């Protein structure tokens, strides 16, 4: 009799516990294995930071360097958020750096003709969505693998931007009085606005990926697309939205990048391909799809963004940048692969 009472109590307890998921307090061991990837990247992030604190204390104990990071890391960090979802779904998008420029061409032309900044922003984001739609059409509808399709559109969108704008550089100094200018690249309590946009993008992506039907579908698609289809997930529609999200985020990042330096260059976005992708992979999102972490990408972005400044501040020449950059990427993705084999 007593035994059965205990069983019932245990069941009730389990149910209450399982509603909450894996708890650090109740079961630290299981917590560690469930979140091994996230804990790993957090540890690596702290290690890197401590290494820079030790080697370049003058730089890394002052607020200025952090303000600089908060201003520049979001320029690739924001687009790394939808990219995390793309990689989780087993896809890839290499075309986004050119979408920075294509969207900005729309911005510049609209602004030159109307002087209306909100309208220019709307046009820019719309072009980003259309660029994403073009990618989605080639990948989802025609069936070209995303890797190949987006290499093509990487060139195509950049080329289109150069042709339309005629290679011009354009100063955006007259957009400064606009309230939107301050909203995009101004400061709040001394913190660059870009940083808040990055946080917003991270929180929104986390909810979408982990607490929404859409994200649930992405995980299954990246894991086993046949399972997704058999269970009635509209895989084409889900993947189409994915590429549109990247396009919009890239166009948005184009605005941030251009307003931040108060000029438009047709080369905007160039050089953001590798940092953004590195942030996703260093963060622990699986190259094979089916697993993704927004927290990892956020820390990954800060790790990637810190390296450059950190190396210079540590007294090494710029030649070391790429060397250490590459080493960090290779080592961290190797660690993720090992962690996955051990705990996955």
């Amino acid at each position: 009799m007593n035994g059965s009472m205990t069983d019932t109590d245990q069941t009730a307890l389990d149910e209450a516990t399982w509603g909450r998921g894996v708890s650090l307090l109740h079961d630290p061991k299981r917590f560690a294995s469930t979140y091994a990837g996230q804990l790993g990247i957090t540890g690596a992030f702290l290690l890197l930071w401590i290494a820079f604190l030790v080697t370049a204390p003058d730089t890394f104990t002052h607020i200025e360097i952090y303000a600089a990071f908060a201003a520049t890391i979001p320029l690739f960090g924001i687009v790394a958020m939808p990219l995390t979802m793309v990689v989780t779904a087993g896809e890839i998008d290499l075309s986004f750096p050119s979408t920075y420029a294509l969207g900005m061409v729309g911005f510049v032309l609209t602004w030159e003709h109307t002087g209306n900044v909100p309208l220019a922003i709307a046009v820019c984001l719309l072009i980003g969505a259309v660029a994403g739609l073009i990618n989605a059409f080639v990948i989802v509808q025609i069936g070209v693998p995303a890797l190949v399709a987006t290499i093509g559109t990487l060139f195509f969108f950049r080329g289109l931007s150069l042709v339309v704008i005629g290679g011009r550089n354009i100063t955006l100094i007259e957009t400064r009085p606009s309230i939107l200018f301050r909203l995009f690249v101004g400061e709040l309590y001394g913190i660059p606005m870009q940083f808040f946009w990055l946080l917003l993008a991270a929180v929104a992506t986390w909810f979408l990926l982990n607490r929404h039907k859409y994200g649930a579908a992405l995980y299954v698609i990246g894991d086993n697309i046949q399972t997704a289809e058999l269970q009635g997930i509209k895989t084409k529609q889900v993947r189409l939205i994915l590429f549109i999200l990247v396009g919009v985020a890239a166009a948005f990042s184009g605005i941030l990048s251009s307003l931040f330096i108060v000029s438009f260059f047709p080369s905007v976005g160039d050089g953001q391909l590798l940092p953004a992708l590195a942030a996703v992979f260093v963060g622990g999102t699986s190259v094979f799809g089916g697993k993704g972490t927004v927290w990892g990408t956020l820390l990954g972005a800060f790790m990637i963004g810190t390296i450059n400044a950190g190396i210079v501040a540590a007294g090494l020449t710029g030649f070391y940048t790429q060397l250490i950059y590459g080493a960090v990427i290779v080592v961290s993705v190797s660690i993720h692969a090992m962690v996955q084999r051990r705990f996955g």
Partner: protein
Amino acid sequence: MFGQMSDKDAGIDPATPRLELRGVNKQFAGVQALSDINFRLGRNEIVGLIGDNGAGKSTMIKHICGYHSPDSGEILFDGVPVHNLTVERARQLGVAAVYQERALADLQTLWRNIFIGQEIQTRFGFLDVRKMRRETHKLMLESMGFTSTAVTPESVVKNFSGGEKQGIAITRALYFDADIVILDEPAVGLSIKETDKLLQFIQSIKKAGKASILIDHNIFHVYEVADRIVVLDRGKIAGRFRPKHRNVIELTEIMREIAETGHSSVPDDPYEEPVSDTEETA
């Protein structure tokens, strides 16, 4: 726990087959894949569909699931013909197919797998993760027989055995009110112990008052759990037998004869209206 009688059953004569194929024909590029298929599935019976590779088992199942539509003939649910059956419509009508390799997403947790595409949402459109974990935990104890504390709703399904994975998929189908569960070669590659576990899951379909079609080319798997066995050969139904009337050696002989000649010299066992367990016990 899955509800013995769903709303779908209300007002329908229990003798009406849950599913019926009448005179179904299908050609692919001039090849007759199915010819004049007449098939019935009772409301609470397990039918084994057996036949060699290429006999048309999968083609027939794909018609029931809405992937193919017949060139001629009809598919009826509860005695009502359904034209232009789609995958979505078949699902709404209670058809669920369980494939060993494609049933689950391996890297995802148990609770995510149970609720793929049918997640419970809160009023605000977000996932009710807490509720899904609890439901999964309940299903684990009550239907899947996972009693070990090593397995939790947060367990990733990759490390489960083939039998367990199909058990999860069957549980999922029944949880979402499927009452025609189709199992495609479920015992392939399973150990004897695993196959036993699987057969228990198949019997749980029967206990829940629902129906199942079990496809296999091995008579031994089907024999133990099927109420009836339908043999397909070269796109035709070559025989209908009842395990309770024949022993497995007899059936193996019949199978061999069909494989060689395309038909059986043994006449079909008479078709009896399938009796539902639920009615017997009621």
